[in-house]
Protein backbone atom coordinates (compact mmCIF):
# COMPACT_ATOMS: atom_id res chain seq x y z
CA UNK A 1 0.00 0.00 0.00
CA UNK A 2 2.98 2.26 0.26
CA UNK A 3 2.95 2.59 -3.50
CA UNK A 4 -0.28 4.55 -3.27
CA UNK A 5 1.59 7.55 -2.00
CA UNK A 6 3.66 7.97 -5.10
CA UNK A 7 0.90 9.16 -7.45
CA UNK A 8 0.70 12.80 -8.46
CA UNK A 9 -1.12 14.95 -5.97
CA UNK A 10 -0.60 12.59 -3.08
CA UNK A 11 0.03 14.22 0.24
CA UNK A 12 3.75 13.76 0.45
CA UNK A 13 5.85 15.13 3.26
CA UNK A 14 3.86 15.91 6.34
CA UNK A 15 6.18 17.55 8.81
CA UNK A 16 6.33 15.95 12.22
CA UNK A 17 5.71 19.35 13.74
CA UNK A 18 2.53 19.98 11.78
CA UNK A 19 -0.43 20.98 13.96
CA UNK A 20 -2.19 17.89 15.31
CA UNK A 21 -5.47 18.56 13.50
CA UNK A 22 -3.76 18.91 10.16
CA UNK A 23 -1.79 15.75 10.76
CA UNK A 24 -4.94 13.83 11.55
CA UNK A 25 -6.63 15.23 8.48
CA UNK A 26 -3.84 14.16 6.18
CA UNK A 27 -3.79 10.76 7.82
CA UNK A 28 -7.48 10.41 6.97
CA UNK A 29 -6.72 11.54 3.43
CA UNK A 30 -4.00 8.94 3.08
CA UNK A 31 -6.24 6.12 4.24
CA UNK A 32 -9.09 7.34 2.05
CA UNK A 33 -6.94 7.59 -1.01
CA UNK A 34 -5.34 4.23 -0.30
CA UNK A 35 -8.74 2.56 -0.12
CA UNK A 36 -9.88 4.15 -3.37
CA UNK A 37 -6.61 3.25 -5.05
CA UNK A 38 -6.99 -0.38 -4.06
CA UNK A 39 -10.47 -0.39 -5.62
CA UNK A 40 -9.25 1.34 -8.77
CA UNK A 41 -6.28 -1.04 -9.03
CA UNK A 42 -8.55 -4.04 -8.60
CA UNK A 43 -10.25 -3.34 -11.93
CA UNK A 44 -7.20 -3.71 -14.23
CA UNK A 45 -5.93 -6.58 -12.09
CA UNK A 46 -9.24 -8.41 -12.54
CA UNK A 47 -9.08 -7.96 -16.29
CA UNK A 48 -5.48 -9.15 -16.42
CA UNK A 49 -6.54 -12.13 -14.35
CA UNK A 50 -9.40 -12.79 -16.78
CA UNK A 51 -7.08 -12.74 -19.76
CA UNK A 52 -4.64 -15.01 -17.93
CA UNK A 53 -7.31 -17.52 -16.93
CA UNK A 54 -8.72 -17.66 -20.45
CA UNK A 55 -5.24 -18.18 -21.84
CA UNK A 56 -4.32 -20.79 -19.21
CA UNK A 57 -7.62 -22.61 -19.72
CA UNK A 58 -7.17 -22.81 -23.47
CA UNK A 59 -3.42 -23.54 -23.54
CA UNK A 60 -3.94 -27.23 -24.27
CA UNK A 61 -5.91 -26.34 -27.36
CA UNK A 62 -3.66 -23.46 -28.39
CA UNK A 63 -0.62 -25.76 -28.24
CA UNK A 64 -2.31 -28.51 -30.19
CA UNK A 65 -4.19 -26.61 -32.90
CA UNK A 66 -2.52 -23.22 -33.04
CA UNK A 67 -4.07 -20.87 -35.57
CA UNK A 68 -5.42 -23.76 -37.69
CA UNK A 69 -8.19 -23.77 -35.10
CA UNK A 70 -9.68 -20.76 -36.86
CA UNK A 71 -9.88 -22.41 -40.28
CA UNK A 72 -10.65 -26.03 -39.43
CA UNK A 73 -14.25 -27.24 -39.57
CA UNK A 74 -14.10 -30.47 -37.60
CA UNK A 75 -15.67 -30.58 -34.17
CA UNK A 76 -15.24 -34.05 -32.81
CA UNK A 77 -15.14 -34.36 -29.01
CA UNK A 78 -14.56 -38.11 -29.22
CA UNK A 79 -11.48 -37.87 -31.43
CA UNK A 80 -10.51 -34.66 -29.61
CA UNK A 81 -10.16 -32.81 -32.89
CA UNK A 82 -11.55 -29.31 -32.86
CA UNK A 83 -11.86 -26.40 -35.28
CA UNK A 84 -13.89 -23.27 -34.81
CA UNK A 85 -14.52 -22.16 -38.36
CA UNK A 86 -18.28 -22.93 -38.35
CA UNK A 87 -18.60 -21.10 -35.04
CA UNK A 88 -16.76 -18.04 -36.28
CA UNK A 89 -18.70 -18.11 -39.54
CA UNK A 90 -22.00 -18.39 -37.66
CA UNK A 91 -21.07 -15.59 -35.28
CA UNK A 92 -20.21 -13.25 -38.13
CA UNK A 93 -23.17 -14.21 -40.32
CA UNK A 94 -25.78 -13.88 -37.58
CA UNK A 95 -24.31 -10.51 -36.57
CA UNK A 96 -24.30 -9.27 -40.16
CA UNK A 97 -27.92 -10.32 -40.62
CA UNK A 98 -28.74 -8.49 -37.40
CA UNK A 99 -26.98 -5.35 -38.58
CA UNK A 100 -28.67 -5.41 -41.98
CA UNK A 101 -32.04 -5.40 -40.27
CA UNK A 102 -31.27 -3.23 -37.25
CA UNK A 103 -29.17 -0.43 -38.73
CA UNK A 104 -31.71 1.12 -41.14
CA UNK A 105 -34.43 0.83 -38.49
CA UNK A 106 -32.35 2.35 -35.69
CA UNK A 107 -31.05 5.14 -37.87
CA UNK A 108 -34.58 5.90 -39.08
CA UNK A 109 -35.80 6.08 -35.51
CA UNK A 110 -32.82 8.12 -34.32
CA UNK A 111 -33.07 10.65 -37.16
CA UNK A 112 -36.82 10.94 -36.72
CA UNK A 113 -36.51 11.49 -32.97
CA UNK A 114 -33.79 14.12 -33.28
CA UNK A 115 -34.97 16.00 -36.36
CA UNK A 116 -38.65 15.51 -37.01
CA UNK A 117 -40.64 14.15 -34.10
CA UNK A 118 -42.94 16.45 -32.13
CA UNK A 119 -41.13 17.61 -28.98
CA UNK A 120 -43.56 15.85 -26.67
CA UNK A 121 -43.03 12.47 -28.34
CA UNK A 122 -39.23 12.42 -28.33
CA UNK A 123 -38.52 11.40 -24.74
CA UNK A 124 -41.33 8.84 -24.39
CA UNK A 125 -40.44 7.03 -27.62
CA UNK A 126 -36.74 6.97 -26.75
CA UNK A 127 -37.65 5.64 -23.32
CA UNK A 128 -39.86 2.88 -24.74
CA UNK A 129 -37.15 1.74 -27.12
CA UNK A 130 -34.59 1.79 -24.34
CA UNK A 131 -36.88 -0.65 -22.49
CA UNK A 132 -35.98 -3.19 -25.18
CA UNK A 133 -32.45 -3.07 -23.83
CA UNK A 134 -33.67 -3.94 -20.35
CA UNK A 135 -35.36 -7.20 -21.41
CA UNK A 136 -33.10 -10.11 -20.42
CA UNK A 137 -31.63 -12.18 -23.22
CA UNK A 138 -33.26 -15.38 -22.01
CA UNK A 139 -36.69 -13.76 -22.29
CA UNK A 140 -35.97 -12.90 -25.92
CA UNK A 141 -35.03 -16.55 -26.37
CA UNK A 142 -38.26 -17.74 -24.80
CA UNK A 143 -40.32 -15.39 -26.95
CA UNK A 144 -38.30 -16.43 -29.98
CA UNK A 145 -38.93 -20.14 -29.44
CA UNK A 146 -42.67 -19.92 -28.84
CA UNK A 147 -43.78 -16.86 -30.81
CA UNK A 148 -41.22 -15.74 -33.37
CA UNK A 149 -40.17 -19.12 -34.77
CA UNK A 150 -43.71 -20.44 -35.34
CA UNK A 151 -44.52 -17.15 -37.07
CA UNK A 152 -41.40 -17.29 -39.23
CA UNK A 153 -41.90 -20.93 -40.12
CA UNK A 154 -45.52 -20.60 -41.10
CA UNK A 155 -45.48 -17.34 -43.03
CA UNK A 156 -42.28 -15.30 -43.30
CA UNK A 157 -39.85 -18.02 -44.41
CA UNK A 158 -42.13 -19.54 -47.10
CA UNK A 159 -42.78 -16.03 -48.38
CA UNK A 160 -39.07 -15.26 -48.58
CA UNK A 161 -38.44 -18.55 -50.34
CA UNK A 162 -41.15 -17.88 -52.90
CA UNK A 163 -40.05 -14.35 -53.67
CA UNK A 164 -36.28 -14.45 -53.22
CA UNK A 165 -35.78 -18.17 -53.76
CA UNK A 166 -33.34 -17.51 -56.62
CA UNK A 167 -30.80 -16.23 -54.07
CA UNK A 168 -28.73 -18.91 -52.31
CA UNK A 169 -29.60 -17.36 -48.94
CA UNK A 170 -33.25 -18.27 -49.18
CA UNK A 171 -33.16 -21.84 -50.36
CA UNK A 172 -33.46 -25.26 -48.79
CA UNK A 173 -35.72 -26.84 -46.22
CA UNK A 174 -37.34 -24.73 -43.52
CA UNK A 175 -36.88 -26.00 -39.96
CA UNK A 176 -37.61 -22.96 -37.86
CA UNK A 177 -34.52 -22.64 -35.68
CA UNK A 178 -32.10 -21.03 -38.10
CA UNK A 179 -29.49 -18.41 -38.79
CA UNK A 180 -32.19 -15.98 -39.90
CA UNK A 181 -34.28 -16.46 -36.76
CA UNK A 182 -31.19 -15.76 -34.63
CA UNK A 183 -30.35 -12.74 -36.79
CA UNK A 184 -33.82 -11.29 -36.37
CA UNK A 185 -33.84 -11.65 -32.59
CA UNK A 186 -30.33 -10.16 -32.47
CA UNK A 187 -31.56 -7.24 -34.56
CA UNK A 188 -34.29 -6.51 -32.03
CA UNK A 189 -31.77 -6.77 -29.20
CA UNK A 190 -29.09 -4.45 -30.61
CA UNK A 191 -31.52 -1.88 -32.01
CA UNK A 192 -31.84 0.09 -28.75
CA UNK A 193 -28.05 0.42 -28.48
CA UNK A 194 -27.51 1.58 -32.04
CA UNK A 195 -30.51 3.89 -31.76
CA UNK A 196 -29.50 5.57 -28.52
CA UNK A 197 -25.87 6.14 -29.49
CA UNK A 198 -26.74 7.50 -32.93
CA UNK A 199 -29.32 9.72 -31.30
CA UNK A 200 -26.72 11.16 -28.93
CA UNK A 201 -24.32 11.68 -31.81
CA UNK A 202 -26.98 13.43 -33.91
CA UNK A 203 -27.90 15.63 -30.96
CA UNK A 204 -24.26 16.73 -30.81
CA UNK A 205 -24.39 18.10 -34.37
CA UNK A 206 -24.45 21.91 -34.14
CA UNK A 207 -27.64 23.63 -35.26
CA UNK A 208 -25.68 25.82 -37.66
CA UNK A 209 -25.27 22.76 -39.91
CA UNK A 210 -29.05 22.47 -40.25
CA UNK A 211 -29.66 26.20 -40.53
CA UNK A 212 -27.08 26.68 -43.26
CA UNK A 213 -28.53 23.88 -45.32
CA UNK A 214 -32.14 25.03 -44.88
CA UNK A 215 -31.12 28.59 -45.76
CA UNK A 216 -29.80 27.32 -49.07
CA UNK A 217 -33.26 25.99 -49.85
CA UNK A 218 -32.94 22.37 -48.89
CA UNK A 219 -36.00 20.49 -47.76
CA UNK A 220 -35.83 19.19 -44.21
CA UNK A 221 -34.87 15.71 -45.40
CA UNK A 222 -32.19 17.10 -47.68
CA UNK A 223 -30.81 19.14 -44.79
CA UNK A 224 -30.56 15.99 -42.69
CA UNK A 225 -29.00 13.86 -45.35
CA UNK A 226 -26.58 16.45 -46.75
CA UNK A 227 -25.57 18.39 -43.64
CA UNK A 228 -26.42 16.53 -40.46
CA UNK A 229 -25.69 12.88 -41.16
CA UNK A 230 -22.33 13.48 -42.88
CA UNK A 231 -21.26 15.60 -39.93
CA UNK A 232 -22.10 12.74 -37.57
CA UNK A 233 -20.90 10.02 -39.90
CA UNK A 234 -18.03 8.57 -37.92
CA UNK A 235 -20.12 8.64 -34.74
CA UNK A 236 -22.90 6.75 -36.48
CA UNK A 237 -20.42 4.19 -37.77
CA UNK A 238 -19.21 3.92 -34.19
CA UNK A 239 -22.76 3.24 -33.02
CA UNK A 240 -23.14 0.52 -35.63
CA UNK A 241 -19.87 -1.12 -34.60
CA UNK A 242 -20.96 -0.94 -30.97
CA UNK A 243 -24.09 -2.82 -32.02
CA UNK A 244 -21.89 -5.33 -33.81
CA UNK A 245 -19.93 -5.85 -30.59
CA UNK A 246 -23.18 -6.59 -28.77
CA UNK A 247 -24.35 -9.00 -31.44
CA UNK A 248 -21.08 -10.93 -31.48
CA UNK A 249 -21.23 -11.71 -27.79
CA UNK A 250 -24.96 -12.28 -27.37
CA UNK A 251 -25.51 -15.76 -26.00
CA UNK A 252 -28.81 -16.96 -24.65
CA UNK A 253 -31.31 -15.82 -27.23
CA UNK A 254 -29.05 -17.03 -30.02
CA UNK A 255 -28.48 -20.40 -28.37
CA UNK A 256 -32.21 -20.89 -28.14
CA UNK A 257 -32.94 -19.96 -31.76
CA UNK A 258 -30.03 -20.81 -33.99
CA UNK A 259 -30.39 -24.58 -34.05
CA UNK A 260 -26.92 -25.35 -32.69
CA UNK A 261 -25.28 -27.31 -35.46
CA UNK A 262 -21.57 -27.25 -36.30
CA UNK A 263 -22.15 -26.61 -39.99
CA UNK A 264 -21.49 -23.96 -42.58
CA UNK A 265 -24.46 -23.37 -44.86
CA UNK A 266 -25.16 -20.59 -47.33
CA UNK A 267 -28.89 -20.68 -46.66
CA UNK A 268 -30.16 -18.51 -43.84
CA UNK A 269 -32.92 -21.08 -43.25
CA UNK A 270 -30.35 -23.64 -42.16
CA UNK A 271 -29.40 -24.05 -38.52
CA UNK A 272 -25.96 -22.88 -37.48
CA UNK A 273 -23.93 -22.17 -34.39
CA UNK A 274 -22.11 -19.23 -32.84
CA UNK A 275 -19.06 -19.04 -30.61
CA UNK A 276 -21.03 -17.87 -27.59
CA UNK A 277 -23.76 -20.46 -28.16
CA UNK A 278 -21.26 -23.32 -28.39
CA UNK A 279 -19.69 -22.30 -25.09
CA UNK A 280 -23.10 -22.01 -23.45
CA UNK A 281 -24.25 -25.41 -24.67
CA UNK A 282 -21.19 -27.55 -24.34
CA UNK A 283 -19.17 -26.14 -21.49
CA UNK A 284 -20.98 -27.68 -18.55
CA UNK A 285 -21.25 -31.03 -20.32
CA UNK A 286 -17.72 -31.19 -21.70
CA UNK A 287 -15.84 -34.11 -20.19
CA UNK A 288 -12.48 -34.24 -21.89
CA UNK A 289 -9.81 -31.70 -20.97
CA UNK A 290 -9.24 -31.01 -24.65
CA UNK A 291 -12.93 -30.28 -25.21
CA UNK A 292 -12.88 -27.78 -22.34
CA UNK A 293 -9.67 -26.24 -23.62
CA UNK A 294 -11.14 -25.90 -27.10
CA UNK A 295 -14.19 -24.12 -25.69
CA UNK A 296 -11.97 -21.86 -23.59
CA UNK A 297 -10.00 -21.12 -26.76
CA UNK A 298 -13.27 -20.11 -28.43
CA UNK A 299 -14.01 -17.84 -25.45
CA UNK A 300 -10.54 -16.35 -25.73
CA UNK A 301 -11.02 -15.62 -29.44
CA UNK A 302 -14.45 -14.14 -28.79
CA UNK A 303 -12.96 -11.92 -26.11
CA UNK A 304 -10.20 -10.66 -28.39
CA UNK A 305 -12.63 -9.93 -31.24
CA UNK A 306 -15.13 -8.04 -29.07
CA UNK A 307 -12.35 -5.99 -27.47
CA UNK A 308 -11.07 -4.95 -30.89
CA UNK A 309 -14.54 -4.17 -32.19
CA UNK A 310 -15.47 -2.12 -29.11
CA UNK A 311 -12.22 -0.22 -29.09
CA UNK A 312 -12.79 0.73 -32.74
CA UNK A 313 -16.34 1.85 -32.02
CA UNK A 314 -15.29 3.97 -29.08
CA UNK A 315 -12.57 5.72 -31.05
CA UNK A 316 -15.05 6.67 -33.76
CA UNK A 317 -17.63 7.95 -31.28
CA UNK A 318 -15.04 10.02 -29.47
CA UNK A 319 -14.07 11.69 -32.69
CA UNK A 320 -17.52 13.20 -33.16
CA UNK A 321 -18.77 13.75 -29.69
CA UNK A 322 -15.61 14.55 -27.83
CA UNK A 323 -16.51 16.04 -24.50
CA UNK A 324 -20.25 15.65 -24.82
CA UNK A 325 -20.13 12.25 -23.17
CA UNK A 326 -21.99 10.56 -26.00
CA UNK A 327 -21.51 6.85 -26.04
CA UNK A 328 -20.51 6.60 -22.43
CA UNK A 329 -24.12 6.18 -21.39
CA UNK A 330 -24.84 3.52 -23.93
CA UNK A 331 -22.29 1.10 -22.59
Amino acid sequence: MTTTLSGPGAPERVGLDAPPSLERASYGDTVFRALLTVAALAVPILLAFLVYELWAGSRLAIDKFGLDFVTSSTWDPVAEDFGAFPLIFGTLLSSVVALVIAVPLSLGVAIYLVEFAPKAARQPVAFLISLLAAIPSVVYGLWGIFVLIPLLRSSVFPFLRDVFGFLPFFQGPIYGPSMLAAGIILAIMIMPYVMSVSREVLLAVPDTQREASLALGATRWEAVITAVVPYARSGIIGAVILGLGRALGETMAVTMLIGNRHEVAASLFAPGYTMAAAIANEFSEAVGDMHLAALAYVAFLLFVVTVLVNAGARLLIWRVARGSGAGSKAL
Partner: protein
Amino acid sequence: MNRRILRRLFSNLMVALMIGAVVVALLPLFFILLDLVAKGASSLSFDFFTKIPAPAGESGGGVAHAIVGTLLIVGVASLIGLPLGIAAGIYCAEYPGSRLTWVTRFVADVMNGTPSIVVGVFAWAWIVATQKHFSALAGSAALAMLMIPMVLRTTEEMIKLVPNSLREAALALGYPRWRTNLTIVVRTTLPGIVTGSLLAVARVSGETAPLLFTALGSQYLSFDLNQPMAALPLTVFTYATGPYEEWHRYAWAAALILILVVFVLSLGARLATRQRFTLNG
Protein backbone atom coordinates in the same frame (compact mmCIF):
# COMPACT_ATOMS: atom_id res chain seq x y z
CA MET B 1 -41.55 24.57 -59.67
CA ASN B 2 -42.33 20.98 -60.37
CA ARG B 3 -39.02 19.83 -59.02
CA ARG B 4 -39.57 21.64 -55.79
CA ILE B 5 -42.87 19.84 -55.27
CA LEU B 6 -41.16 16.55 -56.01
CA ARG B 7 -38.43 17.28 -53.51
CA ARG B 8 -41.00 18.28 -50.91
CA LEU B 9 -42.89 15.04 -51.60
CA PHE B 10 -39.72 12.99 -51.30
CA SER B 11 -38.93 14.66 -47.98
CA ASN B 12 -42.38 13.80 -46.69
CA LEU B 13 -42.06 10.25 -47.97
CA MET B 14 -38.83 9.78 -46.03
CA VAL B 15 -40.46 11.15 -42.88
CA ALA B 16 -43.31 8.69 -43.36
CA LEU B 17 -40.80 5.86 -43.74
CA MET B 18 -39.09 6.91 -40.53
CA ILE B 19 -42.40 6.93 -38.69
CA GLY B 20 -42.83 3.43 -40.06
CA ALA B 21 -39.44 2.53 -38.57
CA VAL B 22 -40.56 3.82 -35.18
CA VAL B 23 -43.65 1.64 -35.35
CA VAL B 24 -41.68 -1.43 -36.42
CA ALA B 25 -39.16 -0.79 -33.66
CA LEU B 26 -41.87 -0.61 -31.02
CA LEU B 27 -43.81 -3.68 -32.20
CA PRO B 28 -41.47 -6.30 -30.66
CA LEU B 29 -41.59 -4.56 -27.28
CA PHE B 30 -45.35 -4.49 -27.41
CA PHE B 31 -45.70 -8.12 -28.43
CA ILE B 32 -43.09 -9.47 -26.01
CA LEU B 33 -44.79 -7.77 -23.07
CA LEU B 34 -48.23 -8.79 -24.30
CA ASP B 35 -47.21 -12.45 -24.74
CA LEU B 36 -45.50 -12.52 -21.37
CA VAL B 37 -48.67 -11.38 -19.64
CA ALA B 38 -50.98 -13.48 -21.80
CA LYS B 39 -49.02 -16.72 -21.40
CA GLY B 40 -47.45 -16.18 -18.01
CA ALA B 41 -50.02 -14.49 -15.81
CA SER B 42 -52.40 -17.47 -15.67
CA SER B 43 -49.74 -19.68 -14.09
CA LEU B 44 -48.98 -17.24 -11.32
CA SER B 45 -50.40 -18.41 -8.02
CA PHE B 46 -49.48 -18.44 -4.37
CA ASP B 47 -47.95 -21.89 -4.85
CA PHE B 48 -45.84 -20.63 -7.72
CA PHE B 49 -44.03 -18.26 -5.40
CA THR B 50 -43.78 -20.54 -2.38
CA LYS B 51 -43.21 -24.08 -3.65
CA ILE B 52 -40.29 -25.80 -5.29
CA PRO B 53 -40.82 -27.72 -8.56
CA ALA B 54 -42.82 -30.92 -8.58
CA PRO B 55 -40.98 -33.98 -10.01
CA ALA B 56 -40.85 -33.87 -13.80
CA GLY B 57 -44.13 -34.81 -15.42
CA GLU B 58 -46.24 -34.08 -12.34
CA SER B 59 -48.17 -30.85 -12.16
CA GLY B 60 -48.03 -28.23 -9.45
CA GLY B 61 -45.02 -26.77 -7.77
CA GLY B 62 -43.40 -23.39 -8.18
CA VAL B 63 -40.18 -21.52 -8.52
CA ALA B 64 -39.50 -20.48 -4.93
CA HIS B 65 -36.05 -22.05 -5.20
CA ALA B 66 -35.20 -19.86 -8.19
CA ILE B 67 -36.50 -16.66 -6.59
CA VAL B 68 -34.46 -17.31 -3.45
CA GLY B 69 -31.48 -18.27 -5.62
CA THR B 70 -31.64 -15.09 -7.70
CA LEU B 71 -31.93 -12.95 -4.55
CA LEU B 72 -28.93 -14.66 -2.94
CA ILE B 73 -26.70 -14.76 -6.02
CA VAL B 74 -27.45 -11.19 -7.07
CA GLY B 75 -27.29 -10.03 -3.44
CA VAL B 76 -23.80 -11.43 -2.92
CA ALA B 77 -22.71 -10.10 -6.31
CA SER B 78 -23.90 -6.63 -5.30
CA LEU B 79 -22.06 -6.83 -1.99
CA ILE B 80 -18.83 -7.44 -3.88
CA GLY B 81 -19.41 -5.46 -7.06
CA LEU B 82 -21.12 -2.28 -5.91
CA PRO B 83 -18.60 -1.08 -3.28
CA LEU B 84 -15.68 -1.91 -5.54
CA GLY B 85 -17.24 -0.24 -8.56
CA ILE B 86 -18.34 2.84 -6.66
CA ALA B 87 -14.96 3.28 -4.94
CA ALA B 88 -13.09 2.87 -8.22
CA GLY B 89 -15.54 5.33 -9.82
CA ILE B 90 -14.87 7.90 -7.08
CA TYR B 91 -11.15 7.43 -7.62
CA CYS B 92 -11.46 8.03 -11.36
CA ALA B 93 -13.53 11.17 -10.84
CA GLU B 94 -11.46 12.63 -7.99
CA TYR B 95 -7.98 11.98 -9.39
CA PRO B 96 -8.51 12.59 -13.10
CA GLY B 97 -4.83 13.30 -13.74
CA SER B 98 -3.51 10.05 -12.38
CA ARG B 99 -2.28 7.39 -14.78
CA LEU B 100 -4.19 4.74 -12.85
CA THR B 101 -7.39 6.62 -13.66
CA TRP B 102 -6.66 6.41 -17.35
CA VAL B 103 -5.90 2.70 -17.15
CA THR B 104 -8.90 1.90 -14.96
CA ARG B 105 -11.30 3.82 -17.15
CA PHE B 106 -9.99 2.15 -20.28
CA VAL B 107 -10.19 -1.29 -18.69
CA ALA B 108 -13.73 -0.60 -17.51
CA ASP B 109 -14.71 0.21 -21.09
CA VAL B 110 -13.11 -3.01 -22.29
CA MET B 111 -14.91 -4.99 -19.60
CA ASN B 112 -18.22 -3.35 -20.47
CA GLY B 113 -17.93 -4.74 -23.97
CA THR B 114 -16.89 -8.21 -22.85
CA PRO B 115 -19.58 -10.80 -23.56
CA SER B 116 -21.08 -12.12 -20.34
CA ILE B 117 -20.45 -15.71 -21.41
CA VAL B 118 -16.71 -15.00 -21.47
CA VAL B 119 -16.93 -13.69 -17.92
CA GLY B 120 -18.72 -16.94 -17.07
CA VAL B 121 -15.84 -18.96 -18.49
CA PHE B 122 -13.47 -16.85 -16.40
CA ALA B 123 -15.43 -17.48 -13.20
CA TRP B 124 -15.52 -21.16 -14.05
CA ALA B 125 -11.77 -21.35 -14.58
CA TRP B 126 -11.09 -19.29 -11.49
CA ILE B 127 -13.48 -20.79 -8.94
CA VAL B 128 -15.27 -23.87 -10.26
CA ALA B 129 -12.22 -25.53 -11.77
CA THR B 130 -10.10 -24.99 -8.67
CA GLN B 131 -12.85 -26.01 -6.23
CA LYS B 132 -13.89 -28.91 -8.45
CA HIS B 133 -17.60 -28.22 -7.95
CA PHE B 134 -20.21 -25.75 -9.16
CA SER B 135 -21.23 -23.08 -6.68
CA ALA B 136 -23.52 -20.10 -6.35
CA LEU B 137 -20.50 -18.12 -5.20
CA ALA B 138 -18.84 -18.55 -8.58
CA GLY B 139 -22.04 -17.20 -10.17
CA SER B 140 -21.96 -14.20 -7.85
CA ALA B 141 -18.32 -13.57 -8.74
CA ALA B 142 -19.18 -13.56 -12.45
CA LEU B 143 -22.10 -11.17 -11.92
CA ALA B 144 -19.99 -8.89 -9.71
CA MET B 145 -17.40 -8.76 -12.46
CA LEU B 146 -20.13 -7.57 -14.84
CA MET B 147 -21.41 -4.96 -12.39
CA ILE B 148 -18.09 -3.30 -11.56
CA PRO B 149 -17.47 -1.50 -14.88
CA MET B 150 -21.11 -0.38 -15.21
CA VAL B 151 -21.21 1.10 -11.70
CA LEU B 152 -17.75 2.57 -12.09
CA ARG B 153 -18.62 4.54 -15.20
CA THR B 154 -21.96 5.88 -13.95
CA THR B 155 -20.44 6.86 -10.59
CA GLU B 156 -17.64 8.66 -12.35
CA GLU B 157 -19.97 10.49 -14.73
CA MET B 158 -22.26 11.55 -11.88
CA ILE B 159 -19.42 12.84 -9.68
CA LYS B 160 -18.05 14.88 -12.56
CA LEU B 161 -21.35 16.79 -12.58
CA VAL B 162 -20.68 18.15 -9.10
CA PRO B 163 -19.57 21.78 -9.45
CA ASN B 164 -16.04 22.41 -8.25
CA SER B 165 -17.22 25.35 -6.16
CA LEU B 166 -18.89 22.91 -3.76
CA ARG B 167 -15.58 21.12 -3.25
CA GLU B 168 -13.69 24.37 -2.89
CA ALA B 169 -16.18 25.70 -0.35
CA ALA B 170 -15.78 22.63 1.82
CA LEU B 171 -12.00 22.63 1.54
CA ALA B 172 -11.88 26.34 2.33
CA LEU B 173 -13.81 25.67 5.52
CA GLY B 174 -11.00 23.36 6.56
CA TYR B 175 -12.59 20.03 5.72
CA PRO B 176 -10.03 17.37 4.92
CA ARG B 177 -10.28 15.94 1.48
CA TRP B 178 -11.82 12.62 2.50
CA ARG B 179 -14.62 14.33 4.42
CA THR B 180 -15.22 16.69 1.53
CA ASN B 181 -15.50 13.68 -0.71
CA LEU B 182 -17.80 11.62 1.42
CA THR B 183 -20.03 14.26 2.97
CA ILE B 184 -20.20 16.79 0.14
CA VAL B 185 -19.38 15.21 -3.21
CA VAL B 186 -20.71 11.70 -2.72
CA ARG B 187 -23.66 12.98 -0.70
CA THR B 188 -24.63 15.31 -3.55
CA THR B 189 -24.41 12.57 -6.15
CA LEU B 190 -26.01 9.87 -4.04
CA PRO B 191 -29.16 9.69 -6.18
CA GLY B 192 -27.04 9.26 -9.27
CA ILE B 193 -24.95 6.54 -7.67
CA VAL B 194 -28.11 4.79 -6.51
CA THR B 195 -29.42 4.97 -10.07
CA GLY B 196 -26.26 3.47 -11.49
CA SER B 197 -26.27 0.73 -8.88
CA LEU B 198 -29.91 -0.17 -9.43
CA LEU B 199 -29.41 -0.30 -13.20
CA ALA B 200 -26.44 -2.61 -12.75
CA VAL B 201 -28.42 -4.85 -10.39
CA ALA B 202 -31.31 -4.89 -12.87
CA ARG B 203 -29.03 -5.87 -15.71
CA VAL B 204 -27.27 -8.71 -13.96
CA SER B 205 -30.52 -10.06 -12.50
CA GLY B 206 -31.48 -11.13 -16.00
CA GLU B 207 -28.10 -12.57 -16.92
CA THR B 208 -28.16 -16.27 -17.71
CA ALA B 209 -24.97 -16.97 -19.60
CA PRO B 210 -22.51 -16.38 -16.75
CA LEU B 211 -24.55 -18.65 -14.45
CA LEU B 212 -24.76 -21.66 -16.78
CA PHE B 213 -21.56 -23.30 -15.60
CA THR B 214 -21.04 -21.50 -12.32
CA ALA B 215 -24.29 -21.59 -10.31
CA LEU B 216 -25.51 -24.33 -12.68
CA GLY B 217 -29.08 -24.42 -11.37
CA SER B 218 -30.84 -26.89 -9.13
CA GLN B 219 -34.31 -28.26 -8.47
CA TYR B 220 -34.17 -27.76 -4.74
CA LEU B 221 -34.37 -24.87 -2.34
CA SER B 222 -30.85 -24.16 -1.19
CA PHE B 223 -29.22 -21.45 0.91
CA ASP B 224 -25.71 -22.83 0.68
CA LEU B 225 -23.58 -20.50 -1.42
CA ASN B 226 -21.00 -23.20 -1.86
CA GLN B 227 -23.42 -25.48 -3.71
CA PRO B 228 -25.16 -25.25 -7.09
CA MET B 229 -28.16 -22.98 -6.86
CA ALA B 230 -31.19 -22.18 -9.01
CA ALA B 231 -31.81 -18.72 -10.44
CA LEU B 232 -34.79 -17.29 -12.30
CA PRO B 233 -33.04 -16.81 -15.67
CA LEU B 234 -31.64 -20.35 -15.51
CA THR B 235 -35.11 -21.68 -14.72
CA VAL B 236 -36.57 -19.85 -17.71
CA PHE B 237 -33.88 -21.35 -19.92
CA THR B 238 -34.24 -24.93 -18.65
CA TYR B 239 -38.03 -24.86 -18.76
CA ALA B 240 -38.23 -23.18 -22.16
CA THR B 241 -35.92 -25.69 -23.80
CA GLY B 242 -37.41 -28.67 -21.94
CA PRO B 243 -39.85 -31.19 -23.41
CA TYR B 244 -42.93 -30.73 -21.21
CA GLU B 245 -45.92 -28.51 -21.94
CA GLU B 246 -46.18 -27.72 -18.22
CA TRP B 247 -42.55 -26.56 -18.17
CA HIS B 248 -43.23 -24.17 -21.02
CA ARG B 249 -46.07 -22.55 -19.08
CA TYR B 250 -43.78 -22.20 -16.08
CA ALA B 251 -41.07 -20.71 -18.26
CA TRP B 252 -43.48 -17.94 -19.31
CA ALA B 253 -44.55 -17.30 -15.73
CA ALA B 254 -40.95 -17.25 -14.47
CA ALA B 255 -40.02 -14.90 -17.32
CA LEU B 256 -42.90 -12.62 -16.34
CA ILE B 257 -41.60 -12.44 -12.77
CA LEU B 258 -38.08 -11.85 -14.04
CA ILE B 259 -39.10 -9.00 -16.29
CA LEU B 260 -41.20 -7.41 -13.55
CA VAL B 261 -38.17 -7.48 -11.26
CA VAL B 262 -35.95 -5.95 -13.95
CA PHE B 263 -38.46 -3.25 -14.91
CA VAL B 264 -39.21 -2.28 -11.31
CA LEU B 265 -35.47 -1.93 -10.63
CA SER B 266 -34.97 0.12 -13.81
CA LEU B 267 -37.92 2.36 -13.03
CA GLY B 268 -36.67 2.82 -9.48
CA ALA B 269 -33.33 3.80 -10.93
CA ARG B 270 -34.95 6.46 -13.09
CA LEU B 271 -37.05 7.82 -10.23
CA ALA B 272 -34.02 8.11 -7.95
CA THR B 273 -32.49 10.78 -10.17
CA ARG B 274 -35.60 12.41 -11.50
CA GLN B 275 -35.50 15.56 -9.38
CA ARG B 276 -31.81 16.36 -9.40
CA PHE B 277 -30.30 15.59 -12.74
CA THR B 278 -31.83 15.13 -16.11
CA LEU B 279 -30.15 12.12 -17.58
CA ASN B 280 -32.32 11.83 -20.68
CA GLY B 281 -31.59 8.29 -21.47
